[in-house]
């Protein structure tokens, strides 16, 4: 990263949009601009508040010459520019561009705005290609997140985040087992019942499994979910999915949490994005829109530790999705799941656990995949093993190798 040499003395900054683009709704632009500021407030104690009258950062959509001696050049070329703090921090966007929101068409407003606000805060262009502060527009990235380079840059100027966002996942009151408060606001929670739920022992097949950004492991089945502990199920479960992730449906096909800390849920032709337990925008959206090249009605999805890319599984095939590439799915996909040595077709779920291993689930059984050997681990007892015994703590289930329910 590169610092221009100036920064704001205060951390509570104000902004206003003085001139809007022609083709987008004002409310949508307001949301995207706030989201773009949030990119930076997520890693620092900076706050950005919309305000009228005198503000720190003024935002305008302009065409051609617009009074600062640095005229815009029409569609393409220069998309926007912004001034460093010492020059006022204002951000100007070329109104001739086809600004878009959550779409591969046009130029993504959120990403460009987040970049420009980096300048407004004192960051120059970075020569790290994957950094947000790299000068070139890289196309719409549905899984956008700041690069380490950007985070180090902004924290060099304003320090690390010490305050938690409000209201967010992290700010909920902790309950007995350290999890967030899932009860309605202002209601006192009842203590979790001490007994461990046995319903997964009777039928251990489930829909999806994933880790939350906070490091908890959740199993979804129908309209219910369970939190797993190191050895079994946490007390007090199951709970209703819709009560904890408002707006999310049951019978989810697949889910994963990406490196941006957001969790993606897939069902049929749709997907949802959540930040903690809060829906992160207007969802559901079409998989074909946000994950071009990935089929509907998925079996499983995971972020693979081998390369950090997202893998989707369906039937006997898998797809690799790399949001930084265009297209994100190479033409050589789908490929056969048999490439994953020892992993069966028609999976129910898959994820990488906190121990670094990747696990695949089918029926009542699971397989542990060794990411270095690129094969299912050879162990005693060998895989597949009983999900009920090894994951849900059901002592009545077999501990050795089992067949799948299929």
């Amino acid at each position, binding site marked *: 990263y590169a610092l221009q040499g100036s920064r704001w003395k205060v951390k509570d900054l104000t902004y206003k949009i003085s001139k809007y683009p022609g083709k987008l709704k004002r409310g949508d632009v307001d949301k995207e601009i706030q989201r773009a500021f949030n990119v930076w407030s997520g890693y620092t104690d900076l706050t950005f508040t919309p305000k009228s009258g005198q503000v720190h950062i003024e935002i305008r959509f302009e065409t051609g010459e617009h009074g600062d001696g640095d005229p815009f050049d029409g569609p*393409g070329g220069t998309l*926007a520019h912004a001034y460093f703090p010492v020059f006022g921090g204002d951000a100007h966007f070329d109104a001739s561009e086809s600004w878009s929101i959550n779409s591969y068409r046009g130029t993504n407003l959120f990403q460009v705005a987040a970049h420009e606000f980096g300048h407004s805060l004192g960051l120059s*262009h970075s020569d790290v290609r994957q950094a947000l502060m790299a000068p070139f527009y890289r196309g719409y990235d549905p899984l956008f997140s700041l690069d380490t380079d950007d985070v180090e840059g902004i924290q060099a100027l304003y320090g690390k985040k010490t305050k938690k966002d409000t209201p967010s996942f992290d700010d909920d009151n902790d309950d007995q087992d350290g999890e967030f408060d899932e009860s309605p606001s202002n209601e006192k929670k009842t203590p979790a019942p001490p007994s461990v739920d046995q319903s997964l022992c009777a039928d251990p097949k489930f829909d999806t499994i994933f880790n939350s950004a906070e490091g908890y492991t959740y199993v979804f089945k129908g309209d219910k979910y369970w939190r797993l502990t190191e050895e079994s199920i946490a007390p007090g479960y199951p709970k209703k999915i819709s009560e904890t992730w408002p707006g999310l449906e049951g019978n989810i096909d697949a889910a994963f949490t990406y490196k941006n800390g957001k969790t993606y849920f897939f069902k049929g032709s749709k997907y949802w994005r959540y930040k903690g337990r809060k829906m992160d925008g207007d969802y559901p959206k079409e998989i074909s829109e946000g994950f071009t090249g990935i089929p509907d009605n998925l079996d499983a999805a995971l972020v693979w530790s081998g390369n950090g890319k997202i893998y989707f599984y369906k039937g006997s095939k898998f797809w690799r999705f790399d949001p930084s590439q265009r297209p994100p799915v190479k033409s050589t996909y789908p490929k056969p799941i048999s490439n994953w040595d020892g992993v069966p077709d028609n999976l129910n779920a898959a994820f990488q656990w906190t121990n670094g291993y990747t696990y695949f689930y089918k029926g009542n059984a699971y397989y542990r995949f060794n990411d270095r050997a690129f094969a299912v681990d050879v162990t005693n007892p060998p895989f597949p093993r009983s999900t009920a015994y090894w994951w849900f703590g059901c002592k009545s289930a077999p501990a050795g190798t089992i067949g799948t329910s299929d």
Partner: protein
Amino acid sequence: SAPSDSSALIYLSQYGYISASRGNSSQLLDERSYKKAIEDFQSFAGIDVTGQLDPVTLETMTLPRCGVKDKVGTGDNRAKR
């Protein structure tokens, strides 16, 4: 100069690889400085550093981008006290 040379010169000037005064008077820019500016751009853009306006360099110059200079605060244009 070929058209690509003159537009490249404008580009390099616009984004801070050549100081503005030089960019306005291309005939006064010596070949070594011009090559150095191209190399700086290539290095910054993460493409092969050839010092030549090769096709990849020219194509990179057509990519949509931010209008803020890549090179700022280098002190190149500051008078020596």
